[in-house]
């Protein structure tokens, strides 16, 4: 690695459900509400499609933070998917915390299709939190490093 110290740019994976949060992210774009480019969004049909394995994989591959966005409770397009997601993530995040991945690196947030501003604000806040925590070393598979 060259000697010059590069400003730390976190790698953030955001899972967004197709019906609410992905549309909310689109709305943030339409309204030109900026948030850091470190956030990369993966579209899933529903927050309940997010397998805990995906999140483990992200940390293994060197992600510094993972955020899951879904419809507000009661608003799920599939009636109950976000409740499943909420339960699964509660369990997973407490396990990750036990493994040394700080609770602040993981988050579940409800963002509706009308909440572009909330989406941008959430992402700004999340990136700031993760940046303050610095690089994540736990779970990281060094073989994946270049």
């Amino acid at each position, binding site marked *: 690695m060259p000697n010059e110290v590069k400003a730390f740019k976190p*790698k953030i994976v955001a899972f967004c459900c197709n019906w609410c949060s992905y549309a909310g992210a689109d709305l943030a774009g339409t309204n030109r509400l*900026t948030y850091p480019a470190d956030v990369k969004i993966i579209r899933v*049909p529903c927050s*309940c*499609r997010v397998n805990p394995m995906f999140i483990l994989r992200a940390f293994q591959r060197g*992600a510094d933070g993972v955020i899951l966005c879904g419809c507000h409770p009661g608003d799920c397009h*599939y009636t*109950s998917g976000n409740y*499943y997601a909420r339960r699964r993530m509660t369990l997973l995040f407490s396990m990750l915390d036990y493994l040394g991945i700080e609770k602040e690196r993981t988050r579940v947030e409800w963002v509706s299709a009308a909440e572009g501003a909330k989406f941008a604000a959430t992402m700004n806040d999340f990136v700031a939190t993760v940046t303050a925590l610095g690089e994540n070393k736990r779970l990281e598979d060094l073989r994946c490093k270049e």
Partner: protein
Amino acid sequence: MQRIGVFVCWCGSNIAATVDVQAVSDALAKEPGVVYSTNYQYMCSEAGQNMIKNAIKEYNLTGVVVCSCSPRMHEATFRKTVAAAGLNPYMLEVANIREQCSWIHKDKEAGTEKAIVLGRTAIAKVQLNAPLQAGESPVVKRALVIGGGIAGIQTALDIAEAGFDVDIVEKNPTIGGKMTQIDKTFPTLDCAACILTPKMVDCAQNEKIHIYSYSEVESVKGFVGNFTVSIKKKARYVDENKCTGCGECTTKCPMKNVPNEFNLGMDNRRAIYIPFAQAVPKVATIDPNYCNMLKNGKCGLCAKVCGAGAIDYKQQDQIVEEKYGAIVVATGYNPIKLDKFDEFGYSLSKDVITSLEFERLTNAAGPTSGTLLRPSDGKHPHTIVFVQCVGSRDTSGCGKPYCSKICCMYTAKHAMLTREKYPDTDVYVFYIDVRSPGKNYDEFYRRAVEQYGVHYIKGMVGKVAPRADGKIMVQASDLLADEQLHIEADLVVLAAAIEPDKSARPLATMLTASMDTNDFFTEAHAKLRPVESPTAGIFLSGACQGPKDIPDTVSQASAAAAKVIGLLVKDKLTTNPCVAQSNEMMCNGCSSCERVCPYGAITYVDKEFRMPDRTTRVRRVASVNPAVCQGCGACTVACPSGAMDLKGFSNSQIMAEVDAICQMK
């Protein structure tokens, strides 16, 4: 290995201003599997789409990545484009580099870098894409309408008109619903029975319509185009096919003191009864709670007088099973109970009545044959007070938080008709707001004030206290005059809020249709899909979706019918191909997926498998019905053995996306 083509869109300057599109297409060209990469000003234009089509043919592309606006915008467009070039439409992925990149990042370097990552992510996904085929499911060309009020009747008539079979399930002995109890209708004042009963007769005579009266829906299985419904025909102890409706039994039955629900208990009927003269079907029904023969085996008078021999005391409830392509909910409304409103004294005096009771008191077929008389002493009332918003717009927990919508207009009608028939009566209407948006509605209300001299007072009644001399003291505020009024009234009429019928909630559970907190059915979209439930194949008609007057109900009923016809006219439905799929070799039969599926799309089947030693073994494995599955993916995560996967969003595809995002330097 796929042969992938990458198409980067400038979107004019929308993308190109903050993303170096040339750099993006150059960088993505180096990705494994990419054989062609280009950029163009407007990919969605005809020229842009032709570029994609030509490249598919020229380079034998098997996968396409378009880096452009949100897939919510143009995914469908580009799917059509690749399909036109002979590629499976699901071999396309869209990288969202406008809404989620160029529009939010001002820094061109960061924007370009992110766009490259997003493009690479889409490429990683498309590597694992498989051609998907939209499935088909057949449509049963028969509709079910639940509820036989004006909403259900109108929907059924319209569907039958288009040539499809319709069944109406009505829980009461006759169809017609609330409208049969109403005397006149606003704003034209034509008589409700005169416009409703011909429609009821039409229903009975239409050979496409079958009426299950005195019946309830027991269970609903299946999905859009293919519902299986069990209908319970309650025992009415009268053979519907034999009964001629002559009514002889209803005059001979010795049980004379049964409260008549058609007149809201203001008079009595017999234990065997026909609700009213124009009932459809005009068939007698025995009320098992009052019939002596059914309760203790003594009487049998109705059977003796029945010339047709239709009485059958041994009749049992009967379950009928039918298949339907579409279901319309038209369960309607009821006025709320007023037991929480002591201040209005509803339970203290017979002369404090609800508006629906007032309808019966002014109806020629009602308990007073249409003469307005006080229920307590049968005298003409000279001062009548109407109270609006009783239990409506009430967030205190006693009533309903919403506006019941119809009360302003029917109260104006009641006040107007009273003044017209009995000009010596003083009529007061206490209102909070008069809500009369509708064609000729405000004019109607103004006529009540200007032509008929109804006293409209802005304010609310605070206390209704019956006095020993039969007068009713009404204490109210007059906000505009800033004074408190004390009126000696003879009759007080409460415009009770309306609420959905009690049967709606269990029905919604059966149909997996969603409801709001007030138990009104929710529509698929408040503005653009107002007569469809979010659950495919379930439609909404009338007040079960929200308070509605008759004109609104009829319009919505016809709209629901149009939607049903649009569905039934199809022979097959195409289904979303991005559905769950179970790998039977990996499935261990644990039922985890079945339990989380919100649609009941997963069933377990016993299947024979060949073992390595050439024996066969029967194993219990999950099987997904692609026509029912909506593709949420809840089951894929619940599956402990990884057998369940979602087409189009498979585990490996999402993993590949995660890897591609994390791979950046």
